[in-house]
């Protein structure tokens, strides 16, 4: 009894975002497909030859914080009934009205044997009201989770906002979920090929990670290059700022060019995930490339000493922007100016509890260590990690290794061979709530075959 699985699209969105408009478009579109829509709440959108079905809301119990075992009984029952019909459906859309988290629905198609046989999860689509989303994006967990889970995000009602507002919203959403395809729509008008049969959950078809997030998300917000003398002592001063500490790193540079800066940046990313030394005011900050966590008094600020181990160029990386703490480096009370500086996108803004954390590295991974780490990570942090995805380079393997997860459930497999022209890379993305970039990076680095 093997038949082609029927694709299932999960549609989420805040009330009034335009889900019903989108559903009606999907149903009316001349795509020649028979589509069944399953809703949490009965809607008045029945169309000829189409179906809108009522699904009663079901409570999901958390077994030790795990929702794997308790999948959506109602959904399974309804889909089972639908499959008895002669006029089988080509596509199923499940609207998760009133549910903050579409994961239980999505997971149903992974964990239930019958469902796995008959259906394949195509994508999670979230529709966002570009005009009104600002009213709840900061406070509503539901809104954040819907964005965090999405494979496709429709920024709808773009005609009601200015270009600037739209630009701000797009950037914010990209920071929360760097992997989603974001489309701007008016009246939910969008090509069906952008939302249906896109196979976002098919590892064989979609084992790619959008690399854009990697440049946008760094564990530091600022870098400045200084020329410092070995025979001088410098004072590094911080005023009181928004945080009681600041992670800081000096990396010596041989010369000031793109290549050196790029190398230093990679080193800084790695160092920021390593162990740090906590320093109180008055202590020496190392100049040799070791991470320091500087404690800054909430009222008085802090002042540290710096004695460069050699004369030359240094790149200073700071966790927060120097302006937030009025950072100054002085030599004999004379401020030293940065020769060059760079600001990085605030990938870890304080107000964003839902965000994407990307990790990229070139080393080969030890599969056993990786399995242990991913297993531990998703069981311990799975409730906060909404989605995860990775394309990985495993030691002594010719094939790429791909995996994806929804909360603590994940599937992994060997993919195609690495191409000779291709650089073997590890790319991982985690989307979720309260993610600890340093913990994730550190855990990942420990899986490298070269790591002890």
């Amino acid at each position: 009894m093997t038949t082609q699985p029927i694709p299932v699209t999960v549609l989420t969105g805040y009330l009034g975002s335009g889900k019903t408009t989108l559903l009606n478009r999907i149903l009316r579109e001349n795509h020649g497909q028979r589509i069944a829509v399953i809703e949490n709440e009965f809607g008045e959108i029945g169309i000829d030859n189409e179906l809108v079905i009522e699904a009663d809301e079901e409570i999901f119990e958390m077994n030790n914080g795990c929702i794997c075992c308790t999948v959506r009984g109602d959904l399974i029952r309804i889909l089972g009934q639908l499959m008895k019909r002669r006029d089988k459906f080509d596509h199923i859309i499940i609207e998760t009205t009133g549910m903050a988290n579409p994961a239980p629905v999505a997971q149903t198609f992974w964990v239930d044997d019958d469902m796995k046989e008959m259906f394949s999860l195509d994508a999670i689509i979230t529709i966002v009201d570009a005009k009104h989303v600002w009213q709840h994006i900061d406070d509503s967990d539901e809104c954040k989770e819907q964005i965090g889970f999405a494979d496709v995000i429709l920024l709808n009602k773009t005609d009601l906002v200015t270009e600037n507002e739209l630009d701000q919203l797009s950037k914010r959403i990209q920071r929360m979920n760097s992997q989603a395809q974001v489309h701007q729509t008016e009246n939910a008008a969008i090509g069906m090929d952008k939302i249906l049969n896109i196979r976002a959950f098919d590892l064989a078809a979609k084992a790619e990670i959008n690399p854009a997030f990697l440049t946008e998300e760094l564990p530091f917000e600022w870098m400045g290059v200084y020329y410092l003398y070995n025979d001088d002592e410098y004072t590094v001063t911080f005023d009181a700022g928004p945080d009681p500490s600041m992670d800081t790193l000096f990396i010596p540079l041989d010369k000031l060019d793109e290549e050196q800066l790029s190398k230093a940046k990679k080193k800084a990313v790695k160092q920021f995930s390593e162990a740090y030394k906590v320093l109180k005011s008055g202590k020496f900050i190392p100049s040799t490339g070791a991470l320091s966590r500087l404690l800054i008094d909430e009222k008085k600020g802090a002042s540290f000493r710096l004695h460069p181990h050699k004369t030359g160029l240094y790149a200073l990386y700071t966790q927060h922007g120097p302006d937030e703490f009025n950072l100054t480096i002085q030599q004999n009370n004379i401020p030293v100016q940065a020769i060059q500086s760079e600001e990085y996108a605030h990938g870890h803004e304080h107000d964003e509890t839902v965000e994407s954390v990307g990790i990229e590295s070139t080393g080969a991974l030890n599969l056993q260590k990786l399995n242990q780490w991913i297993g531990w990570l998703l069981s311990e942090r799975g409730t906060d990690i909404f989605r995860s995805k990775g394309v990985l380079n495993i030691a002594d393997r010719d094939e790429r290794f791909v995996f994806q997860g929804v909360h603590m459930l994940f599937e992994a497999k060997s993919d195609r061979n690495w191409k000779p022209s291709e650089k073997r890379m590890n790319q991982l993305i985690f989307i979720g709530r309260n993610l600890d970039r340093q913990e994730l990076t550190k855990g990942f680095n420990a899986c490298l075959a070269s790591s002890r």
Partner: protein
Amino acid sequence: MTPYNSELFTSLLDDYILNVCWSGDGKHLISGDSAGMVQVFDVFNREVVHEWQAHDAMLCLAVSPQQSLVVSGGQDGRFKLWNLDTFSLLADHQANSAWVECAVWSPNGNYAVLGTGPRVALIDSNGKLIYQSEKHESTVSSICWHPNGLSFATACFGGVRIFGLTASEPLQNMPWKNSMLSMSWSPDGKFIGCGTQDSRIHFFPQPYEFGQDFEMSGYQGKVKILEWDARAEFLLTNCWSDIVVWRFAGQSPAGQIPWTIDEHEEKITAIRYQNQGSCFASADEGGGLRFFHAQAEDLLCYGAYRMRSCISCLAWSPDDLHLAIGTTDGEIVVIRAPELP
């Protein structure tokens, strides 16, 4: 095994056969398909006596054990009662839900219970609505009657409730935080068993006392079939392509190792005990059918048959001499059951 071939009757429809039921006198077979068509066959004269469209899409159909009544429910949210002698519509009710998914007659045929979304509706044999229950925690997934016909149980996510014949509030709540998919009440009235979403069977001993319920686990998939023999000695359950047999004999099977019957090659889809005898038939997704005799510690597979597609339902004739078989492709076959060697 030599296929047993004693086809008495064959009818080829187009749609998934939801259920096949015998009339009380054993002369007629009533079938319902997913497209909403009800057909009444005169099995021995090999003809269709009557057929009608009950719903646009049907979800359940049940024939009363003694009286000539059939009740059906559909995706139109309606449940209907028909007289099989006159083929007239006796009652047509609109439920407060989009779908009517279960229909079960009481053992004496005086009442039928319908699962109407998160509620159940109790009707009498005239089609009169006696009550509609209060809302359950979720959609009612299964209904079964106490063998005495004075109460029935409903299963849904969150546990099992027992209702009487007069009040719409449950007589008893038996909570269990899981999705209950299937349910059966033992013929001696001592156990209610439920197949759960996480591939276990949860038992509520009767009369129920909080904390006395127990579970049997180890299944490879969801237990959708819980079939008791008439004496409540054996409980047959599906476990992928195996049949797992628990021995009760009035006691809990806890601590016992069940029998496993591995005569099927594909996933089990139906198991039916004879009405009075100690034989049962089992069917699988590939159309395979087997006949077994179970007694004491002995189990004998004494017959086999094959349909062209997945078997969806089985029904023994009242005299246990014939077996009706329905498939997901719309085929209905009645065979004379093999005799025990």
